């Protein structure tokens, strides 16, 4: 991720919460697309 795209702390927290709250793999994939930086946080995101 380029330095300019680094998420703010609040954006990171929001994205993580949304990812955890997504009930299905399909919903998690939608959250992943919304916050691309999540692929650097959750391993599942690299495979879906």
């Amino acid at each position: 991720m380029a330095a300019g795209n680094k998420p703010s702390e609040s954006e990171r927290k929001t994205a993580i919460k949304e990812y955890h709250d997504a009930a299905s793999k399909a919903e998690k994939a939608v959250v992943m697309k919304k916050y691309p930086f999540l692929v650097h946080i959750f391993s599942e995101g690299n495979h879906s």
Partner: protein
Amino acid sequence: MATITKRGKATVSGIPGSFDVIIYPVLQTGKLNQNFEEDVVKDFLGFDVAWNARNEHYLGDFAFKLLGDTQANANAGGVFLAPYATVTLSGFDLATFNGVYQNISGGDIDLGNTKVGDLASKLRRYADATQNTLANTIPA
């Protein structure tokens, strides 16, 4: 949340604290292990006379139970973190535990037919702040 009632000598008890990327699983145990690489030089009789230590870092081993207010939340906790994902620990009574870590190899998700699921996370933090920042920086 209930609190521990204490009398007498002060003690460190329990492991209250939070992980920014782990929301629902509940922490059960946490252990930090100090590591550094050594280069020890001996004299001509084989006695150690010089010591060089490098790369001091702490390896964390944390165990959780997969819980949640709802079944979906409990399920949501059973995920692996990406290699080297940045994990920030905060709110621990011992300041040594607080800080920015990277996720390293060895995480576990453990299910059994008669027990609540377990999640284990292995983390690493470098003692040197500059080195630790580098370890958590994604190359441009």
